[in-house]
């Protein structure tokens, strides 16, 4: 009974697992499924950028790569949508290597800018090559991964819990320690004999794989994919979620993402002002709570119980 708040983790998970039994609303379960996917995206962003301090302004590149890869395979080649998960992750990893190798060995904002540019240009390409990508309409008529909304809910929940747990374990491992060292001082890390470029690229690859799989889940949840999965708005929303959660903590961004994705749905009518609300939240966090909200509150709760 050293730290009582830890009890809440299994309690909350149990509550989320029991929810479909209590609440029969498929609408609510659907919203929550999407929130869980946002959680995966935010946690995977945080693993690379939160730990190493190399901001990624185009996480949507990996999300979109996963989503479109799976959509192509499913719609054009009638492949079973489950194949999309490894294929989407592989495509995201490939892009991570293409962008990561030239940019992550450099100092300065090159990586951030290259990611932003790459995601935006991919979005343009989906519009330009509309014969193949469906243009603005995207690719509709995808098969869902599971046939019941409840099944999808559990799938997304499990994916979120597994990804977050795995990323947390990695972040607390020796490798994670080195990633935090890179955030602290890259040159000093090199002076301690660490190949910083390798670790940064490895972190980006892990992050991209998770985001890509999240993209595949999203595409098959929507049963369609549109160019919006590459949008800057999506990339930025994810970063704001990470900020709200508490950068560099993995679990904070996952929870922050769920809360922030849920907020516009709960406050009806806020939906179209979503980005407006997010940017206001971001400015508030930057000025008044630079450590975020979720992780500091959690730490305080754990600390108080000690």
């Amino acid at each position, binding site marked *: 009974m050293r730290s009582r708040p830890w009890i809440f983790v299994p309690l909350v998970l149990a509550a989320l697992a029991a929810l479909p039994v209590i609440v029969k609303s498929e609408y609510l379960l659907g919203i929550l499924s999407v929130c869980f996917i946002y959680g995966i995206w935010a946690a995977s962003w945080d693993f690379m950028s939160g730990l190493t*301090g190399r901001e990624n302004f185009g996480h949507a590149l990996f999300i979109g790569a996963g989503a479109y890869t799976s959509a192509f395979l499913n719609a054009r080649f009638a492949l079973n949508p489950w194949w999309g998960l490894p294929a989407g992750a592989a495509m995201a990893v490939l892009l991570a290597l293409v962008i990561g190798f030239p940019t992550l060995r450099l*100092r300065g904002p090159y990586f951030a*800018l290259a990611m932003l*540019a790459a995601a935006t*240009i991919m979005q343009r390409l989906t519009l330009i090559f509309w014969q193949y990508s469906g243009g603005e309409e995207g690719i509709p008529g995808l098969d869902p991964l599971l046939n019941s909304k409840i099944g999808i809910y559990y799938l997304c929940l499990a994916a979120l819990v597994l990804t977050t747990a795995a990323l947390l374990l990695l972040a607390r491992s020796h490798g994670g320690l080195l990633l935090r060292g890179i955030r602290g001082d890259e040159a000093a890390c090199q002076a301690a004999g660490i190949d910083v470029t390798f670790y940064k690229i490895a972190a980006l690859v892990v992050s991209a794989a998770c985001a890509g799989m999240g993209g595949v889940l999203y595409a098959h949840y929507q049963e369609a994919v549109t160019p919006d999965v590459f949008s800057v708005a999506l990339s930025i929303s994810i*970063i704001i979620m990470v900020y709200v959660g508490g950068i560099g903590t993995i679990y904070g961004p996952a929870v922050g993402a769920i809360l922030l994705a849920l907020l516009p749905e709960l406050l009806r009518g806020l939906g179209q002002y979503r*980005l*407006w609300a997010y940017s206001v939240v971001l400015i508030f966090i*930057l*000025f008044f709570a630079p450590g975020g909200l979720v992780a500091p509150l959690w730490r305080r709760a754990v600390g108080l119980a000690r």
Partner: protein
Amino acid sequence: MLNILVYGAVTSAVYAMLAVGFTLIFGVARVLNLAHGAFYGLGAYSCYLLTGRLGWPLLPAALVAVLFVAAFGVAMERFLVRPLRHSALAVLMITIAVGLLFEQAMYLLFGSEARNVPAFSNATWSYAGLDVSGQRLLTLGFGIVIIGLLWLFINRTRLGSAILALSQDREGALYMGIPADRIYAVVMAISAAIAAAAGVLTAPFLTVQPTMDLLPMIKAFSIVIVGGLGSIPGSILAALLLGYSETIVAYAVSPAWTEIVSLVAVLLTLILRPAGLLGKRAAF
């Protein structure tokens, strides 16, 4: 051939106007301003508001629009960027927030449909089978004049040399007592004004929409990476390079492929010459 020459020059001029301001504020204040596209968009929308909604004549509307955006840039620097300067990431995030707020504000105020801004010149210039709108030629002319004036300002005035000193050797300049905060404000004003001027000039032949800020910004920093972060001559050179490459690709291959030019240019630069064409190599 003549097509490529003229259209390439117009595109290059617009790109250069966008890129010099972006690279200037980075070089001087180390602010990577992701709201730079919003300055461009705000210029166009202010002009639209004054001419289209309030019925002003174009010339005063254009001038007021540019001045307004300059003031907006200064206010943003003073109240949002300066308090967060201790953290580069926070500065980056706040400029993103401003960019998002711009898009959302324009969306709420004017809706998502494209808006029209009147042109200074409706004439069409024809020569040897080539038709160019007067507005495009005007944009080219203004672009050259504005960048020339900026060059004169930086190389021929006291304030300009202070700006140059700050961008070349920050510690030394600060040590010599150059008032950094005031210079940041001036540079932000210049940077915002040039971007807004580009917005006003191109608005008649490009689309004025809430999301119009994004692509110019991507172009601006592609150019800045190719030219070398913080180098003004570098960004002018890269603007010419990208402007002409895109025009040539549009004519020789297909307009659809132009967007790939800047991405390929950025990646090639980062692989072959990370410091950019005219940038200094980043030292450890």
